[in-house]
Every structure is written in structure tokens, then in C-alpha cells.
């Protein structure tokens, strides 16, 4: 398991610069953030920037096996224009990521919580169809999709499935992946989302089993999705990390902690020193315990 952080902790910096700074700080791995892959995609010469990022990584001891694909992508959208546009963007991002050596793309299940249940069922079919297409496209680049668990909606949300949002339980992700039926589709477990949802990290990890191919590591108080650094919330990290080891997970222990942002980059990096040390201590402690 490699201790990693998503690059948007330095969202103010250009992608290559953020990667360089974080690699220099001592992180073993990185997830290219959605902000940075979008910045690359929308740049004048995307391939050149992607190559620049790859060169920075090659000169470091840091790896970047995963990316957060377009965070707003709604592959289940009822609006065909929206769905096609997002799918096109995701495909382009996969191409660029492949150029940087990235092999796993985290993606949300999407959906609009329709008002009528018939529309909810239609949405589920579109979701499966879209993911099949994306998975087939990604396979050409030896690239896998990791579908991320979400949280249910706010108390005032109204829909044919109430406040529920598709993909907030691991069981739903398994059902989705079964339906997609492609070998290059797995799960990204966002442990903070699971915690808000009332799913213990350890139980969430065990439920993912060998489909777990990526993680979003973040903490919260169990009430709101705060994206804090580990041990700042109420997640049981000892049990959670033990479960990760039990399942034989070897991917990134990837911190996605926008709750720790808000400072200028130089101060953020200072703050990250402590976060890095704490996270390393958590992983080492659990290793010693086993």
C-alpha cells in the first residue's frame, strides 16, 4: 500500500508543478486530481503538458497510478447532449492519462434522482450502457475504471427514491459492476463517504473485496462530508487499515482532503508535513500490529 495524496491539495499550481512539489515532499504516490486533468485537457497543447507531468514523475520516486476523472461527469444523465459531452471528455482524459502512465480512473456513478421510478430504472440502464462503452474504450489503454461510492442526498431532497443516491452503498456498486460485466471496472472506496453514510470503514473495505482498486482517504465527524485528514474525524482507522491489509489491497492509500486547504501553497505544504507523518504512522502502526 502506497501513501498518496490527490494533487488538488495544491490546486493553485500547474499540474507538473503540483506533482513536483508533492513528490519532493516525500509522498509515495499521487492521484491526479480532476482539476488538474481538466486543466491539462483544456490547455492549448495537452499532450505536451501530459508529457511534462510524466517526465517530472520519472525523475522522482513517486508514482501516479490513478486519476480522478471529470468529477461532474454524469454518465447516466437523461439529457443526451450532457451525457455525450461528459463521455467525450472522460475518453479524452483517459487518453491523456494513459500518456502520463496513469492506469486507474476514479469516476462517480452519476444520476439525477428522477421524480418517477420509471425514470430511475431508465437511468440505471443508461448508467450501465455508458460504463460499458467507457470500459471498452479504456481497455485499449490498459486502463481501468474505479466507480466511487457516494453519499445519500440532503434531508430536503425529493425524488422517486427519496433522499437516496445511487451508489451510496457498496452493494449497489457491486450490482452495477456485475451489470457492466467488464474486467476493467472496480471500486474506489471513499472512506469518508462511507462514514457519513453509516458504513464502517472496515466493513466497507471488506464489502469491496477484490474489486477494490482505488481509495479516497478522508475523515469526518460522521455527519457531513468534511474531507479532513485522517484522525481529525471519527473513523476507526485501526480497524479500517487492518481490513485493507486483510483484503490484500496494494493500491494507493490516497488522501483526498480539501478540508485541509485554504492556505497559500507554501503553508499548505507545511501543514502537509504533519499530515504525511501522521498517515505514515497510521500505516506503520497497523503493519506492526499485524
Amino acid at each position: 500500500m502506497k501513501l498518496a495524496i490527490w494533487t488538488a491539495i495544491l490546486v493553485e499550481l500547474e499540474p507538473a508543478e503540483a506533482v513536483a512539489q508533492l513528490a519532493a515532499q516525500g509522498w509515495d504516490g499521487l492521484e491526479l486530481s480532476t482539476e488538474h486533468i481538466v486543466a491539462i485537457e483544456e490547455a492549448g497543447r495537452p499532450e505536451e503538458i501530459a508529457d511534462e507531468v510524466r517526465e517530472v514523475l520519472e525523475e522522482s520516486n513517486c508514482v501516479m497510478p490513478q486519476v480522478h476523472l471529470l468529477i461532474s461527469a454524469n454518465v447516466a444523465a437523461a439529457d443526451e447532449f450532457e451525457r455525450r459531452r461528459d463521455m467525450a471528455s472522460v475518453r479524452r482524459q483517459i487518453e491523456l492519462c494513459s500518456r502520463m502512465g496513469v492506469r486507474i480512473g476514479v469516476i462517480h456513478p452519476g444520476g439525477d434522482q428522477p421524480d418517477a421510478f420509471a425514470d430511475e430504472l431508465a437511468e440505471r440502464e443508461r448508467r450501465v450502457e455508458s460504463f460499458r462503452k467507457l470500459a471498452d474504450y479504456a481497455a485499449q489503454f490498459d486502463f481501468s475504471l474505479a466507480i466511487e461510492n457516494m453519499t445519500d442526498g440532503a434531508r430536503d431532497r425529493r425524488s422517486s427514491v427519496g433522499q437516496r443516491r445511487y451508489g451510496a452503498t457498496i452493494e449497489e456498486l457491486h450490482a452495477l459492476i456485475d451489470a457492466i460485466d467488464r474486467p476493467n471496472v472496480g471500486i474506489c472506496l471513499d472512506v469518508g463517504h462511507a462514514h457519513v453514510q453509516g458504513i464502517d470503514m472496515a466493513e466497507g473495505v471488506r464489502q469491496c473485496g477484490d474489486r477494490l482498486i482505488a481509495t479516497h482517504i478522508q475523515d469526518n465527524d460522521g455527519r457531513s462530508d468534511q474531507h479532513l485528514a485522517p484522525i481529525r474525524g471519527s473513523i476507526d482507522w485501526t480497524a479500517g487499515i487492518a481490513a485493507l491489509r486483510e483484503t490484500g489491497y496494494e493500491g494507493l492509500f490516497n488522501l483526498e482532503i480539501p478540508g485541509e486547504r485554504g492556505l497559500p501553497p507554501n503553508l499548505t505544504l507545511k501543514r502537509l508535513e504533519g499530515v504525511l507523518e501522521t498517515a505514515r504512522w497510521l500505516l506503520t502502526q497497523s503493519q506492526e500490529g499485524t
Partner: protein
Amino acid sequence: MYIGATTHIILDDVPLQEVLQRMADVGFKGGELSLIHLRQLIDSDSPEAAAERTREAADELGLLLPQSHLTMADIACLDEARRETELAAIEREIELSAIAGVKIGILHPGGGFPATLAEYHEVQRVRIDSYSRACEIAAEHGMTIAIENTYDAHGDETSAIGRRRFGAIIPDLHAVIDAVDAENFGICLDTGHTNLFGLPLGEAFRQCGDRLIGTHVHDNNGHDDQHIEPTRGTIDWEDGVAGLREVGWDGIFNLEIAPLRGHPIEAQMLRMRQVVETARWLLDH
């Protein structure tokens, strides 16, 4: 469609037959025999006779008693001994409900918050088994079982599926009914629970379709299960009543409220009259 109320609308030591009389006096056309009153019948010296008297009283008043609320205990719990005790209680509740002229017994899905997925699936197996047995018992007495919708939790609960609770979405209820595959099994839609869960009422009734066989009608603020009168909370009743009509519901519009417990009976009567008037306006509007 006719307006009714669960008989616990008045408690305060008022005997069941007097409750029925007062409900008829304020204009209710029917009611649900509450679990509290059902237990009173069971605990009486001569339960069968007490149930028979209830039926006679309702008949004389022209009051229909189509549904009763059976135990609220967890019939999907994994403790077999406890479950058997509850099923025995259900049998007795059904026997007396039938004597009282009731046709539908309402049960909650139960199941709690299983810690693992394996446990969750075992709970579902047990739930289906318990409902199958409840339906068999009910059939022997010419009754039907209704499974009631619940709502997701928002507290500190944890489980294999987090704070989600089985039975909050209507497809969960259909899944149990499909699995049990009994003719005498349908849905009791609780309008307040749909509001807590964020399910618009008209859509909820449409999702029940022709499996709707009972109603629990009450309102709330969308956050707490307040069981207050329709129009006092945030439910869109126009949408809800339209949904009821779309599915062709002609049964009881059963208010499950207790607005004035503890107040003088005259005040309760006054309030109940207003509640009936409001409900009538909602249905005629």
C-alpha cells in the same frame, strides 16, 4: 374513499367502544384498530367476547374497521426464540382482529441495522419467512397482511448498508411481496414516512399501484415523525390525493394521528371534527 382514524386518536382511559362512538360522532366513517386497543382486547378477561363486542359496536355505528396494527416488534430479527414469540403474538392479534371484523393486519418490515452484508441477507431471508407465516395465519382467518414502508435513519446508526433502512423504498416492499407470493399480501403506505424519506406522496402511491391495501395518513416537517394532521406539515397533499385517485384507491384514508391526548374530551372532539372537515376538503378539493 372514506375518512377514518386509528383508534388511538383518543386514549386517556376512554374505553374502545366509547372511542368508536366518539369517532362516529365527529364524522369518521371508519378506523384502524390500534395496537394499543388490540392489546387491550387480548389482555381482557374474555378476549373473544371483547372483540365480538367491538365488532357489534362498529356495526351499530356504521363504522368500518378494515385494518388493525399488529405488533411493532422486529419479525425479521435473527433471534429465533424471540421471533417465534412474536409470531405467536401475531397469531393471537390476527385471531382477535378477525373477530372484531378487521380484514387487514399491518406489520413493519423490521430487520434493524445488520452489521455485515451476510447478516443483511440473512435478515431478508428471515423477513420473507416471517411474512410467509403471517400470511398463512391471516389466510386461515380470512385476513390479509400489509407491509408498511419505513424511512432511512439519520442518527448514529451504522450497518452494512449504513443508515439506510429496509422498506423505505417501495420497491423493497414489492420485493418481499414477490418473494412471499401469497394472494393475501399488500402494502400499507404511511404518508409521513414517505415525507421523512423524501419520497413525494403522489409518486409513492403510484409506486404501490394495485398492491395498496391500507393507509396511514399523517403529516410532518420532513425531519421528525410527528404524526400531525394533514396540511400541518410539508407534504404536498394535492399531489398525494391525485396519486391515490390515479391508483383507483377506494379504501380508507386512515389518519394515524393523536392530536390532543391529555386534553379534555370536549376539546378533542372539537379538534377531531376539524380534522375530519380538513380531510374531507382535501379529498374533495
